[in-house]
């Protein structure tokens, strides 16, 4: 009798599938027993909605699937479904996400734990489908949890974790999972997909508790308020975001226990940082060419490492500062822009600068903008960034000028 062998990297109680980031998300949603989802077409995120439609049509998932007439309605519909206790999912890209902006602002104070996928896409104008991070970043002040993933596996796992974290009563905040358009949403890789039994051990039911909108719990949600009330309400949101950190650590620990796999550090991935002289930083799939570039540089004797932040909100200030302090210079590659900001840097660079401000050891920090609108980040770009960091490390100080890499000039 032939003995069935599992391929290398297979995990117990998981099955292997060749799926894209969007499809991985749909797998997770099926396992999470999603209740209500709303769809509206815009590239590149909407492949996830197409995947969900197939799951429903073929009887794998029972959920109310509503095609809205615009992103504003799309997000408002699931916001309301969540208030009556339904587990919901939504998503968009680029200007579609912008069209939903009014809903995006109200869901954090309403404490609606909607899980969304943002297929990062350049904002119009020009109309372009390629990846930029500004769409998801736009909500960074409002109370959303924000996380960037870089593989389909991570997309799947993060979707499950997202429900666990967002729907925790201590948190009850919406979460956007950012997946780079095309590179992640559309590319298919081998993923380990857990069984329903495993997921049920990890993910409890959504229980809205005393905030549930139902005739058995008569409440008024969001009465009009004035200067006597608003700052207190904001303070509550501040507290919820602060509590999220512990909830995130707990959730990942539980994930590792149940699934038998998963990152030790939820907050960011560290690649060859143990002895790194130069640490480069990038979010999302930019990590892939960066890792290749780093291996090449290592072969040349250059000790370069990578930190790929996952969680952007809450921002893991202390941990990140600790990890970065040991470097001789830091290079942040933003796949976004923030025109007119300090040093005209990207968003991530300015946040890391702010995080480092009070650190005992503040290595020189260089800011790079690269890969906008889906332009590939090349190995030359990575090497150039690293070399400039080496120069700064040698000089002992950073040039605050922001460098645009890969622009035809």
């Amino acid at each position: 009798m032939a003995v069935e062998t599992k391929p290398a990297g297979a995990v117990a109680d998981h099955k292997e599938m060749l799926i894209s980031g969007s499809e991985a998300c749909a797998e997770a949603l099926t396992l999470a027993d999603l209740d209500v989802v709303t769809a509206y077409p815009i590239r590149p995120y909407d492949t996830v909605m197409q995947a969900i439609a197939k799951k429903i049509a073929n009887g794998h998932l029972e959920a109310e699937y509503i095609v809205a007439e615009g992103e504003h309605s799309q997000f408002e519909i699931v916001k309301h479904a969540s208030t009556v206790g339904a587990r919901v999912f939504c998503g968009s890209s680029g200007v579609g996400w912008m069209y939903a902006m009014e809903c995006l602002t109200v869901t954090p104070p309403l404490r609606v734990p909607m899980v969304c996928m943002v297929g990062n896409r350049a904002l119009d104008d020009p109309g372009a489908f390629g990846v930029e991070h500004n769409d998801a970043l736009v909500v960074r002040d409002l109370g959303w949890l924000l996380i960037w993933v870089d593989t389909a596996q991570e997309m799947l796992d993060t979707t499950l974790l997202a429900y666990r974290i967002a729907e925790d009563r201590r948190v009850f905040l919406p979460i956007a999972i950012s997946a780079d358009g095309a590179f992640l949403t559309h590319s298919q890789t081998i993923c380990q997909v857990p069984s329903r039994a495993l997921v049920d051990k990890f993910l409890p039911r959504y229980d809205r508790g005393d905030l549930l909108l139902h005739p058995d719990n008569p409440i008024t949600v969001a009465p009009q308020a004035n200067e006597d009330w608003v700052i207190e309400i904001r303070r509550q949101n501040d507290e919820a975001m602060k509590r999220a950190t512990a909830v995130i650590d707990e959730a990942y620990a539980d994930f590792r226990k149940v699934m038998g796999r998963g990152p030790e550090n939820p907050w960011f991935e560290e690649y060859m940082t143990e002895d790194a002289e130069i640490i480069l930083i990038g979010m999302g799939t930019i990590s892939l060419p960066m890792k290749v570039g780093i291996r090449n540089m290592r072969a040349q004797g250059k000790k370069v490492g990578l930190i790929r932040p996952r969680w952007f909100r809450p921002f893991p200030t202390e941990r990140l500062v600790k990890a970065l302090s040991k470097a001789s210079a830091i290079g942040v590659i933003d796949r976004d822009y923030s025109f007119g900001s300090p040093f005209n840097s990207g968003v991530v660079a300015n946040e890391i600068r702010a995080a480092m401000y009070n650190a005992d050891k503040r290595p020189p920090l260089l800011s790079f903008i690269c890969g906008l609108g889906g332009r590939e980040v090349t190995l030359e770009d990575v090497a150039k960034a690293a070399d400039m960091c080496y120069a700064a490390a040698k000089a002992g100080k950073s040039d605050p000028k922001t460098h645009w890499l890969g622009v035809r000039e």
Partner: protein
Amino acid sequence: MAHFTCEVVYRGIFQKNLAARICRGIVLSARKAGRWGIAFGRYGDSPQRNGIPAKDFAIVADSQEELEQNMARYEPKEVDVTICVDDTLSKGVESWAWYGLQPINRLTVSGGTVLMTSLQSPAALLKDIHKKEAPYTLALIRAKASFSGLWVYKEDHTEARILGALAKIQPEFLSLDAVCQAIQEAEWGSDLKVASARKAHERLETQPIKITEGNAEIPYAFEKPKWWEMREGVTIPAIPIGKPMEGGKGYVPERNPYFKKYTTRTMRPVIDFDKCVKCTLCWIQCPDSCFDVTPEGLYDANMESCCGCGVCEAVCPAKDCVTMVREDAFEDNASQWEMWRTDKAKYTTWMTDKIHSKEHITRSHGFRFRGQYEEEIKKDLEQGGIEITAGIPGENAAGKK
């Protein structure tokens, strides 16, 4: 005194334009004397609602720096003069939820003035105006409250008279001549209005009020919760469901404890229970759900909730069953049905007395037809007295009179 602060307390919407004219008039008058000023509405009142008490402010100072101290704020902490353009506001002001009942003289400084348009005597007014822990002056302009609306204004010279009176109260900031000049130049100004201002200046009645004088009622107040005491998710409990009134019959709704609304009214319905035909129309058409249903199926307007709109009188088909009577005829919010139930004869006497007081001072609050204000003003001038504007028949007009 290097600056002078004034508040105008008024009936929202009905007197919105009047209050704005007064405050602007104060600043423009002070400008004539080389002073700086700012006029503003209270942002928290916005959007204003018909009848709900609102406040506008005018602040005048000798220098720009002093003026700056008072800018970018929602309201001053104290005022030199409180101008009240509807004397039913003497009973107190409740402008929004959690506001509580605030006495008309609450912001008035010690030794300041409450300037009111009223036809009542000071003694009558002091039954309503709460006691203050400091002395102040009560100044009266003999006039009916001036009610208009957003689009059509009643040119009865109230703003001119107030400005003239202010010149008497605060001459060091507003001389009569400066006031008259500002009125003359205003887009709503005229020679006649200047004359009215001068007359008001002449005829102003003042009376010092001691700390022992006034209504002894303790006005209700609320304490706001801390941020961690508030339920998360911008959520508050709903109002509980109401209950039968007595013996399982009738109905009394639970009501919002944080906003009662009775300081909105300038008149209240007086009900002749013996005439009631139990048609239910007052109860069903009341936008404020004021009517408690009694065990025998009568309708008792709850006087904490009634805001005096007059719809009940308009829709009631029974002749003289519901009559709107000016608010200053009453001293409490007692239940009329309880009074009637306890002693029907006594109630009839009380009720008859109140209804007849109507012939002196029924209020019209608002526009009913084009040319109405001109007619009213003309009649006022001709008769030297007060125009009574009666209600307009409602749904069952044929059944009335």
